[in-house]
């Protein structure tokens, strides 16, 4: 039968955001895949070059709106590395707590998108309902639900609200009970297993070479987690497990994210207990020396986020490079797609947790 190029084009229910997956089909099986990105390109790095350092923080929120806290923190971390600022301890602990809460929120958003892709709107609504609790926590903390603008260069915007520990404790215990419901809706439903197992397999070797990072890499059996192996903030002092699976199929990536959500609860609890008193915000220097460079990489919920900045002598950066994990994972998408049916595409791309805001910058 003649092969047919099919445009699973920019406007398509399974693409979370604007990208075009051109797929060559032989009947129903995918013979070749060619992802096209760039529909959401805003020239973020050029924009950042004519803004003051603090003004780029709300811009960094809008890189990946699903996990805006981790991108803000990455930007602030990069500038702190460049200016060699030592962030006060309390700020480090608050940042770790808030990053992990954002990780759970981002994973729940991914679970919601995966649920709708596979056809069950119940999963969408249950996970978004749990995510609502974390959004409320963030709203109490910094006044916004999605784009927080909470990290500052040298600390955080404001101190934690009054009953911060009590709220977090209640939300976490409630969330962990509800996790069992979510898992039984997905894990123990054989219809879900039928669709997710043995689809979109990528071996550890291929994943490492193609630059796949984060839960997608750990799903293929490579135990690398930036929080563990190159710790930033206070991850070095907390003990948590890097969860990974060996099979490398969509189900393995799904399992890794579900375990990570539980690990994040564990991390938040430890961090809240050890949070010291003290200052939480430094007065950052106004200008950065010309030609001084600095970079940082963090464990974004989607992979390894990385930023590289060069100072310009005044209060603007000369160059700000952003590496988005999904930009690279999408380039590795053909390896996961070839050989599977077109009906598996939502399952495979759903398990990769795409966010197009950061891909196209």
């Amino acid at each position: 039968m003649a092969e047919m190029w099919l445009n699973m084009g920019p406007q398509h229910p399974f693409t979370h955001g604007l990208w075009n997956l051109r797929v060559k089909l032989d009947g129903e099986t995918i013979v070749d895949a060619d992802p096209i990105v760039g529909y959401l390109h805003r020239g973020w790095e050029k924009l950042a070059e004519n803004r003051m350092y603090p003004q780029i923080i709300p811009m960094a929120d809008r890189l990946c709106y699903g996990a805006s806290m981790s991108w803000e923190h990455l930007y602030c971390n990069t500038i702190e590395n460049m200016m060699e600022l030592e962030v006060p301890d309390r700020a480090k602990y608050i940042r770790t707590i808030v990053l992990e809460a954002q990780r759970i929120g981002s994973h729940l958003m991914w679970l919601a998108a995966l649920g709708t892709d596979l056809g069950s709107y119940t999963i969408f609504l249950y996970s978004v309902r749990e995510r609502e609790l974390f959004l409320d926590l963030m709203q109490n903390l910094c006044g916004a639900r999605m784009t927080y603008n909470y990290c500052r260069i040298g600390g955080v915007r404001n101190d934690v609200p009054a009953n911060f520990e009590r709220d977090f404790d209640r939300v976490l215990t409630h969330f962990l009970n509800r996790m069992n419901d979510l898992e039984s809706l997905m894990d123990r439903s054989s219809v879900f297993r039928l669709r997710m197992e043995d689809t979109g397999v990528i071996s550890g070797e291929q994943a490492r070479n193609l630059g796949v990072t984060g839960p997608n890499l750990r799903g293929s059996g490579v135990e690398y987690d930036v929080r563990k192996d190159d710790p930033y903030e206070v991850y070095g002092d907390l003990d948590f497990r890097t969860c990974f699976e060996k099979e490398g199929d969509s189900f393995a990536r799904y399992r890794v994210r579900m375990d990570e959500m539980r690990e994040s609860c564990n991390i938040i609890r430890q961090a809240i207990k050890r949070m010291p008193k003290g200052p939480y915000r430094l007065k950052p220097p106004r200008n950065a020396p010309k030609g001084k460079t600095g970079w940082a990489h963090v464990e974004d919920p989607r992979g390894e986020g990385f930023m590289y900045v060069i100072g310009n002598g005044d209060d603007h950066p000369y160059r700000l490079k952003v590496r988005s994990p999904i930009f690279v994972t999408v380039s590795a998408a053909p390896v996961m797609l070839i050989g599977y049916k077109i009906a598996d595409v939502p399952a495979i791309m759903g398990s990769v947790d795409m966010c197009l805001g950061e891909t196209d910058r």
Partner: protein
Amino acid sequence: MGKLAQREGLGPGGKTGEVIAQTLVEKFPQDVKITKATQNRVFATVNKPAWLNVAAFMKDALDFDHVTAVSGVDWLEEKKMWVVYHITSYANRVTAELIVELPRDQLEIDSISNLWGGANWHERETYDMYGIVFLGHPRMERILTPDGTDYFPYRKDFVGGRRV
């Protein structure tokens, strides 16, 4: 950081940043200059002609297995451009920042997407934004800007904010 437990799916590793910097300088004495080397960071500059050999050596001997980023930097006044590679080695937990300088009028460098597939789209994006051609790249095309753009937006002499 001591000898951490052997991790799943990764080699033994254990070479620290200083050791790696040392081996690099010994292997390529006149091409590689180390600016700084710490426990898990190496900062170095590499001459353009020797770049592909350095990259191949790092991949095979020093088991660097992941290209974090390939970024172009345009130094308009000094009439040169940097291509900054950040390559990570999972086993040794070391990230190397390698800067290669290119004269602004002859923007070509060997592509490493045959060594690491991850660098493929990074190089295409750097070409798309700065016009640096990566020789030997399987598909040297633009990636982010719409087709039909003939200018390179991230160069310092490209003034944004007007109808192009």
